[in-house]
């Protein structure tokens, strides 16, 4: 899975963020002696290593207080990190001057916020055009672009409204349109749908998947909702107490949880909806006869087929039709029936 040519866009090396009176000193003390008391300090992010590829969609998952929002703010340098380094396209962002950082944000980054972060005194159109205004684009170009963005998120006709006159879902559409106005390469979404009710949330997730298909962007998406993570992610990073417990594809997380904590998370999940044929495929000595099944289909998608097919090993083929291995039918049925180990 993932893009064929991998190019790291964002790279974190032992990133730490500590809040408190003397964060840098405290980090040094912790390095010297991990037993140092942390009273009066909050270690929001601890020693995170992470590489994000171009075009990848990484979901950062964790309960509230696990440091996921802080981590994403470290990536965009909305907050300064205490230790380690963050590089974006090979450039250490901590070393950027204020002007260079502003320029980077104006050209490359967009962000969507949990409670929308819209400017209450500006119309929808002016909110979406805001980043373009900051770049100093003239009025007619920025309005044209903003209208285009509003069309894209389905808010045509609401240009003159003020944020308070819109529903939560509509406000978040404005937030999304604003974050896309400058055509960013890197798109941060900080729990974008958490403030919405379940029905609207579902609708917005579909909308998001549609947009994601249209635009080829590197996406860092934060959520505390595991179902949402499974639904949207290429890779999931699960955070606890500021550390990344595991960072892997959804089916690997479900099939091979790295820690107790991750296992607890995945316990309630219907694996058949997550695990794909590809991840059950093992190398084959000899290719079995008959039709191969597509690697991207989930076990749930294959349920009928699995029950009907009598072969012990079912061949699995990738998108080009090349056989990549064989899936053990019994193992697949175990996943389907929920009694896999």
């Amino acid at each position, binding site marked *: 899975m993932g893009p064929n040519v991998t190019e790291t866009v964002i790279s974190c090396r032992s990133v730490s963020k500590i809040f408190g009176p003397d964060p840098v000193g405290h980090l040094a003390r912790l390095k010297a002696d991990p037993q140092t008391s942390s009273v009066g300090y909050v270690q929001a992010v601890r020693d995170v290593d992470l590489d994000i590829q171009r075009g990848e969609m990484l979901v950062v998952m964790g309960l509230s207080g696990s440091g996921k929002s802080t981590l994403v703010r470290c990536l*965009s340098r909305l907050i300064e990190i205490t230790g380690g380094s963050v590089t974006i396209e090979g450039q250490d962002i901590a070393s950027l001057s204020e002007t260079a950082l502003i320029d980077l944000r104006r050209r490359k980054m967009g962000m969507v916020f*949990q*409670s929308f972060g*819209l400017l209450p*005194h500006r*119309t929808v159109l002016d909110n979406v055009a*805001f980043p373009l205004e900051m770049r100093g684009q003239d009025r007619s170009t920025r309005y044209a672009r903003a209208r285009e963005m509003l069309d894209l998120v389905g808010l045509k006709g609401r240009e003159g409204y003020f944020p*308070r006159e819109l529903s939560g879902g509509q406000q978040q559409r404005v937030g999304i349109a604003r974050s896309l106005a400058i055509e960013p390469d890197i798109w941060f979404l900080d729990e974008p749908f958490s403030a919405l009710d379940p029905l609207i949330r579902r609708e917005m997730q579909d909308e998001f998947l549609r947009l994601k298909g249209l635009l080829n962007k590197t996406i860092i998406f934060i959520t505390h909702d595991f179902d949402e993570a499974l639904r949207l992610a290429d890779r999931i990073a699960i955070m606890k107490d500021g550390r990344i417990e595991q960072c892997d594809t959804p089916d690997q997380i479900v099939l091979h949880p790295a820690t107790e904590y991750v296992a607890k998370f995945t316990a309630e999940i219907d694996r058949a909806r997550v695990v794909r044929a590809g991840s059950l495929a093992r190398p084959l000595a000899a290719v079995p006869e008959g039709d191969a099944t597509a690697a991207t289909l989930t076990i749930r998608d294959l349920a009928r087929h699995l029950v009907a097919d009598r072969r012990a090993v079912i061949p699995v083929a990738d998108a080009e039709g090349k056989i990549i291995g064989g899936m053990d039918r019994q193992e697949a049925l175990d996943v389907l029936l929920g009694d896999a180990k």
Partner: protein
Amino acid sequence: MTRPAARSSGMAGLLLALALFLAFGKLLLPEGLIRPPEWLVQPFADWINAAFYFLQNDLGLMALTRAFSDVVEWLLDVTANLLYGKSRWPDIGPIPWIVVAATAFMAGYALKGWRLAALSGGTFVWIALMGQWKWAMETLSVIVVAAPFSVFLGLVMGVLAWRSPRFERILNPILNIAQSLPHFAYMIPVVVFIGVGPKAGAIVTIIFSVPPMIRMTLLGLKRVPEEVIEAGKMAGSTRWQLLSRVRIPTARPEILIGVNQVIMQCLAMVVLASFIGMPGLGQKLLQLLQALKIGLSVEIGVTIVLLAVTLDRLSKAWALRLPEHDEPSARWLHRNRLLVIWLSLCIAGLVLAQFVPYLHEVERKQALSVAGPIDAAMDQVIRVIAPVTAWLRWFLITWVLIPMRDAYLWLPFTAVLALLAAVGWAIGGLRSALICLGYFGLIALSGWWDRAMITVYMVNISVLIAALIGLPLGIWAARNPPRAARILLICDTAQTFPSFIYLIPVIMLFGVNDVAVVAAVVVFAAVPIVRYTIEGLSNVPPELIEAAEMSGATRRQTLWHVRLPMALPTMLVGANQSVMFSLFMVIIAAFIGTQDLGQEMQRALSSTDVGKGLVLGFAVAVMGLMTDHLITRWSEDRKRALGF
């Protein structure tokens, strides 16, 4: 951590015992413990005068203030020409009153709708028809100049305080003192630097009304949601863009509430600035009150009240107005219809005024006046209630006021200090005890102990009576929500009146004496008590009341055991305001003839004695600050105890 209650109350008890011992052992005390001895009194006034002399003459500050006041004077001349036709540049005034009234009407309509339009338009029609146009415009021209200055200064200083925490730390205590200084304390230095007249009135108004603007700007900037700022940063805003296009516009509601407060402070000050020769409604009212012309002063009073309510409602409506979208298909004419209507009304007014002079200017002899009937009616009323008021006056003076005043003056100052320390200790431990001692110690050192005790007694008795009236009224009003809303509206409206206004009815009823002062202060001080009692009681969480009802509590039990304890922190805020208001009012009422700090302050004002005036002002301020400290501390402890 909880403070060791037992030990602290023990210490408070000890101090209380000391206070009682000093009071009852007065006969045994040496003179030095009864009145602050000569050697203790410091010549603060001389020090301040020396400092001012240095500022004024050696530092050349005079030139700077003169330059600033010249700018203000030029602006005052322009507005004076436009509003009431003073012969100065641009020499096009006065604008016909009908045009001003139409403008006020349209402003009200645009901001809130028909009712506000009727109020604001009607106010100006009343002013014109009553023949008070020139006075009202004299007053208004100062506000028109002073308010923008204050708003601008407050905005700049608020932003600076927000940018630099160190500046905020320096500014905060200054603002605290500034907001506890009585109006007169501001006037004396201004008279020294600028002289008397409209210019001085405008400048004292500017200085007086800046503090709330600074506070509200700072508050607004701090309240901007973090995500909005982050969104601005992610959009690639520079710091300046972030401040000017994200933070300040998002803080708009708080900033506009600040503007509202500035305008109301300006009006209150402008009216009082009549004491330093500021012409206008205030001066007229002062003259009429001094001549005891009740009917005419009622007319002016109504005008001031109408003006206050109009200005308050207009600026509040502006602050609270939520943005609304236009239909996308709307034409230019439709979108700007209010502007077009206003312009056509103005043109129509200008043309009409050319042909009908009455609509341009109402001559004094054409003016309506209800003073005669009011005087007659008042005579009737007073004749009817005179026995009651006379008895009340006699009773209060002989049995309450004079004994209390004598008691306060009789108390040895050491006993008062020990008592305050005891109260401080009981509420906030050692720190509060020291704060109380420090503040009142300063009064003892200033040499104005006796005068200060008279002020203290007037404030105490007034707040006590105000609480006796205000608490039951508040509790009664909070019993049913529509009634609570009505009473709150009355309180809000009453709070917008400049304090001066409260003197008219009391002088009418009681004449010129201490009872009138106390009555004015009581009314003024009861308003915040009623208001915060209602607010505190109405905001008790309903599930608590339901829980009490389900436990079988009667209404009285619910009130005593659930609602009042829960409402106490809010009610304490009301008590705090009440004390502040009565301090200010007692000082203002001094011109009726009290023998307290206020009277001395008036003397300092007429002899332009900056040192004395400021010492007296600070003496009043420390009383306010001490009360504020104690009540805030208590209220916060209660809040914490209740888990808010």
